[in-house]
């Protein structure tokens, strides 16, 4: 039995500008709804909903962002009088590796039979445009719907690794900044600052390359057999660089569309939109994020 992708979808802030005031929540809602529609599923069929986005509207810390998404898409909002099944939702924070972490958790609960249908949603948006410092991620959301299949392999392996010696290369925090001039902002305000060092991409490539080789070794995977590479790290140039290092043809790299090269947590789902996963094909997902954390997953469609 394998965990298979039933559908995925994305929602871009730019595309929704006329109909939404696209905050991270609306982007997540739109992506989740679109994903369910593509799979011809209803929200009530969801057993599990995991949000992996990091940069929320108002930098909300409570409740779990996933519970807001659950309410918005109308997934088993309250316990009915008759028998049924509910939806369990919570957030996973693992930076740019959050989607693959969420998928691995859904995979575990599908295998145990604890859930039958799970979704991972991720979206990021500048919570305070004009106030935040260093925020360069485009507003985009993504969703992926997963279920168990008795006859298809699906996700066959995951590998996670952390490299804390590079923790300072990608850092973001909300901290108080005094406002010496007073005025409407009063004595000061809490401000989000994102800092990504120029050397981050190179280090992320080093970390990702070694982690991919570990997975390949453990799974007896010949990287020449990879049909599609979906590699993301919130800054441009990562996927092509990793393909070169791994000896994977540039033609097999799922690229991010113009304007979304810096997509953060939803990036793997954005890249997946451009990649047709043919039956029998092998896809290698690689995400690198702050930490440095690397997540690698092998998917056999």
């Amino acid at each position, binding site marked *: 039995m394998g965990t298979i992708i039933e559908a995925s979808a994305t929602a871009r802030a730019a595309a929704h500008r006329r109909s939404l005031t696209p905050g991270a929540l609306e982007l997540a809602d739109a992506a989740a709804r679109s994903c369910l529609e593509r799979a011809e599923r209803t929200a*009530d069929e969801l*057993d*599990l909903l995991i949000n992996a986005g*990091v*940069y929320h509207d*108002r*930098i909300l*810390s*409570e*409740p*779990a962002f996933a*519970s*807001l998404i*659950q*309410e918005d898409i109308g997934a*088993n*909002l*309250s*316990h*009915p*009088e*008759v*028998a*049924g*099944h*509910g*939806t*369990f*939702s*919570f*957030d996973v*924070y*693992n*930076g740019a*590796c959050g989607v693959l972490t969420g998928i691995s958790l859904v995979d*575990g*609960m599908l*295998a*145990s039979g*604890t859930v*039958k249908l799970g979704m991972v949603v991720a979206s990021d948006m500048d919570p305070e445009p004009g106030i935040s410092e260093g925020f360069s991620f485009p507003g985009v959301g993504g969703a992926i719907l997963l279920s168990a299949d008795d006859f298809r392999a699906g996700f066959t392996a995951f590998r996670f690794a*952390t490299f*804390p010696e590079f*923790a300072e290369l*990608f*850092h*973001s*925090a*909300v*901290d*108080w900044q005094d406002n010496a001039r007073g005025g409407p902002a*009063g004595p000061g*305000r809490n401000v*989000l600052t*994102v800092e990504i060092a120029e050397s981050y991409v190179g280090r992320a490539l080093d970390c990702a390359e070694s982690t991919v080789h570990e997975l390949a070794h453990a799974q007896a995977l010949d990287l020449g057999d990879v049909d599609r590479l979906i590699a993301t790290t919130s800054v441009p140039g990562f996927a092509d660089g990793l393909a070169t290092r791994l000896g994977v043809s540039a033609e097999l790299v799922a690229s991010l569309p113009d304007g979304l090269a810096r997509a953060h947590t939803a990036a793997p789902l954005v890249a997946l939109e451009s990649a047709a996963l043919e039956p029998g094909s092998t896809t290698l997902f690689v995400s690198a*994020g*702050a*930490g*440095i*954390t690397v997540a690698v997953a092998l998917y056999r469609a």
Partner: protein
Amino acid sequence: MEKSGPPAREGEHWMSLEGGADGSPNGAPYTSRFVGIGASLPERRLTSDELMASTKHRTGIDLERLTGVRERRIAGEDEDSYTLAVGAARNALAYADCAAEDLDMVIVSSISHYVGGLRWQLDPPLSILVKEAIGARRAVSFDISNACAGMMTGTFLLNDMIRQGRIRRGMVVSGEYISQLGVNAALEVRTMMDDQLASLTVGDAGAAAILERAPDGAPGIEVAGFTTLAEHSRLCLAFPARVGRGAAMYSDARTLQEVGIEDTVPMLREALNQAGLEFDDIDYFIPHQTSARAIHKGVKEFSESMGGTPKHVVVTVDEFGNTSSTTHFVALWKYLREGRFAKEDRVLLLSIASGLEVGIVIFKVDQLVGRYGHDH
């Protein structure tokens, strides 16, 4: 209009449930069990009287009488979410008698992510720092966030993975540095009906739990279950404060309490049925610690609905306040250290948290008592 709900599937439950009657793995190859509960409490104490004396406006609120919170712990200058989490993690490892290198997974489940004082870290996740500090180099790590149900959610995830044999041993840990909610609320609260009143009840604490695969036939976690009743998701919201450092929390605490109690009854019934138990088979009932009044009201209504009463109801909110995701495990740690449990005791942990999250874990204490020097 009567709600029809989604069509039922064979053998299904409203909650996502793991486990079964008599502690059997119920289809899974293994049983998981707690082997170490750790905590880290700041030395500084702040009484409710002291906190209410600091409010900007004259409120006339007798907070201790209203909530039962006599005092809470307050982080010192060198303490924050990270240091409290690390302290609790080390404490749990000592009781579990295992090395950090033996951990396959580390899940950080704090709501608060303060590192270096009131600096809220988003990237990298806190788990990277905690894992490095304790030396859990082999462990897969990530953060989760599920309001006050965070540690219970982590327990649910670890339990599922251990039962399947995906991992052998894991830790869930939280460091909650949330007392600044009270400091910020004290600037704005005016009446008992204020939507920041609940912020005045919170306290700081770290807690950690280590779970591992139990030997064949040994008792452990019998049932773990969770669900989210999201029609109530917006009853409590927290985000960076406008009035000062740290966060602010706004909640409709009264409604949250009412719907929490009402919606939990069918979930309790479901989890107990799954375990083949009645409510009065529970020796120690440990609910989320919001206020003494809410706990007693909840137990009364649960007991009337379930037709039984647990032998003991654990209340620690008087001493520690509401320590958010850590409350159940701070209470467990305190009772284990004080030798309150017997080996054969059965404990039910109940989360009712913003979301609205309802989580239940039922387990036998068994070998845990010996680890705290009370093997009787």
